[in-house]
């Protein structure tokens, strides 16, 4: 239901504006984010997430923006001894910013990535069957954020993201995020790499 709601919102937003072209790779945006897992299913019955942080790099594309990023959270065990883990989400994605005014923009997009989990210990069944403490799975995310430009080079934002990691028992979570974005004119070197 959450997915459907967010997808519907994104589609509605996309349908209600003209997609604007822009100069690709003209700037680089570096974002520091703080995030909190607001709600979720399955895993949260046995593991408790702490607040997390992350960073993102994004750049304008011909349409929308390309981005890549990282998010960290710690999940402490509730039920299974030594099963706490560090969650590292590496992703890339695309988003589109709708400028509501000179300062305010609404951005929404999709991300694909991999959720890496580093457990405190290996899990061993009997003396023979060992699961590595490193587990990973594909994960996608739909995100929406409200951005406010403080100065020409600095923005703040608040947003929300719906993330789904496709374990055998899938894990879906709703994140609240907030952060600070620094914008720079891109270098020739950066443009050469990206083009």
């Amino acid at each position: 239901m959450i997915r459907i709601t967010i997808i519907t919102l994104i589609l509605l937003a996309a349908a209600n504006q003209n997609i604007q072209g822009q100069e690709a790779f003209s700037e680089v945006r570096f974002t520091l984010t703080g995030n909190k897992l607001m709600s979720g299913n399955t895993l949260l019955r046995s593991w408790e997430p702490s607040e997390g942080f992350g960073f993102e790099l994004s750049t304008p594309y011909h349409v929308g923006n390309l981005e890549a990023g990282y998010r960290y959270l710690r999940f402490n065990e509730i039920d299974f001894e030594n099963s706490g883990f560090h969650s590292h989400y590496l992703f890339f994605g695309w988003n589109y910013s709708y400028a509501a005014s000179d300062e305010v923009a609404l951005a929404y997009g999709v991300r694909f990535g991999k959720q890496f989990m580093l457990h405190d210990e290996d899990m061993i069944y009997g003396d023979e069957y060992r699961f590595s403490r490193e587990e990973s799975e594909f994960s996608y995310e739909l995100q929406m954020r409200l951005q406010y430009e403080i100065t020409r080079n600095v923005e703040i934002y608040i947003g929300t993201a719906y993330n789904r990691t496709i374990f055998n028992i899938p894990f879906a979570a709703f994140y609240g995020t907030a952060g600070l974005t620094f914008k720079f004119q891109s270098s020739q070197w950066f443009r050469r790499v990206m083009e």
Partner: protein
Amino acid sequence: MVQEGDGMKRNLIILVVFFLVHSSDLFAADTTYSSDSDSTFTPKISGVSDYVWQTGWNYSSLDRMSMLTNSGDFGFYGPQPLFMLDGIPFDPAFFGMAYSQHFPVPYFQSQHTELTGGHGVRNGVSYRAGLMQIDLEPVKGGISLFGSGQYGHNSGEPGPWVFNPERVSPNVERFGPWINGGISMKFGNWYAKGLLKFQEYKHVDEFVQLRMINLRRSPTDPTDWLGVETRSLLTLAETGYSGSWITLKLQAYQSESEDFLFFQPFAREVPAEFKVNQYSALADIKLHSNMGVRGLYQYREQGLDYRLNRFEHNFDWRKEINSLRGSFYYNGERYQADVGAEYETTNVEAPGLSEYEQIITTAFLQQKLQIIPQFSVSATTQVQFSDEEYAIQVGGEFQVRANPFWNIRLGASYTELLPEVAHPLEHQVMNGYYIFSHLEIPFELPGQIGNTRKLSINHHHQFDIQDDVSLNVGAEWTRHISMNIPFQAAIYNLEYSTMPGTYTLLPEISGERLKATADLQFVPLRNMVHRAAVTVNSTLSGDTEYEAYWKMIPEFVVQYSVDYTPFSDVNLALNLQYRSETTWSEFSNLDGELNRTFHVQYPFRFFEFSDTIPPHFNIDLKMGKWFLGQRLRGELLLKNLLNNDYQTHPLGIRERFGYMARVEMRF
């Protein structure tokens, strides 16, 4: 068709008849579907299934690495298509199962693939049961390097639930790493290139693993569990000269893998080490601006050796092929012809076989005559000789350009295959190879295997409706006059999943099939191509065994694809496919039986075998972006977006949502 009497005299008569028949230009033979990458920006092939993403063709795979293909000619267990790379044939198949690991090309470098059914001649090489031709990107001037890595897996990893004994599940299948590297250089007309291709795959899916899991215990140390990974390494070197009057190529490749061969007569896999060595020398010399001669010599060695396994099963099989092909071609404005011959010796060394040697000589003639601009006729005739036997393939086609927007093709063909060509395994077993006894397979083979024969009539219409819309519709009626159908009545076994029942080669089965296809291409934008295709396969009549055999092929296949390159550095591709239900009667004894999980640390789970694969709908999405001025490319393939749990073989892996990521560099 077996003849008695003076072989030389008879062969001479046949040759004369062959050329006389040809002078009347009766036939042509095939149906071709091809796909091009529009540029190096958009490689089409990411996995084995992409090779057969073509109207009218089907594939089945147990592991996503190997495949059975059906060109519509003889089905999954019949003779498989000839594989050809840049004009040089190769053979990645072992007893009918083609392994993509042994394709001497990285997937993504396959710039153009063309699938052709029936028989015919291509570049002076004759084929008898379809052709899969793969062309690479041309070698660039100067020195070029490339490297790529690919990795992916199905969804469904256990994640943190490994810590919960009641909810833990096995790790899932991994595709990769697949690593390719190569160097090429071209100076003037001369070029050289080298390729290294490494692929790894891990069998984890419960439907496959349970059969293998019981093979894993070491025969020497019961506490030692052997791996279920497959690994392959292929190296290729090629050099050549390509001038306006002469083209020369020397190519050598070697391929080895530790693998599992799904041996259809055994109804399960046998661990084996595969080996392929192939050396080719090709020459194409123009005698005039529109005529020339071609020659191709090939030495190919294929082997199946022992890979450690619990039962010590061992094919201990080695095949050597020496072939020499020569042809003369003429490409005039109104008349084209390709006439030539092939001489091929096949030696097989295997337990029980003594001096097994097959010598097959083939003569062929392919012609096309443009009678008037609106009307042309083409014809192909091949005759194969082996000892006192021979087999012929003739076909012809009329091509009519009814108006600038409508092309019509009407063709017919007759194909006959020698038993050693259509059923080499059974032929070797009948000559003493005791693999069936070694694997304890009860079997019944006919005293003599007759030729496989079929007759088909087809017609196709191509409508160029507008510059950006074209429609192809066609139908082919096929009468299999005589087929020999391999049949393994697999037995259910709880511990081993399957055990072989009696293996038979059902002799002289006949029936009729109809295949209809429609293919619509729409190019609304220069950078966007839509394609929709429908294939309908139907068995019109035939023996009970015939009808059961063709139920392995889906009756309806609907495909839709869109390729979109919104900007020069980004490509998006979406593939949708619907396949109707198929039934594999070989596995009727397993229908409704239970497959179980193996490892004691997982909660015990059952899965149900079925001889019927339900209809399924699949969506794949591919996204790619170039960086560094088209020197670095990243690609993400999302497979089975709907996460439908489907199979393409009743004993094969279940396709679930999965992803593959690939990085490619070229300098």
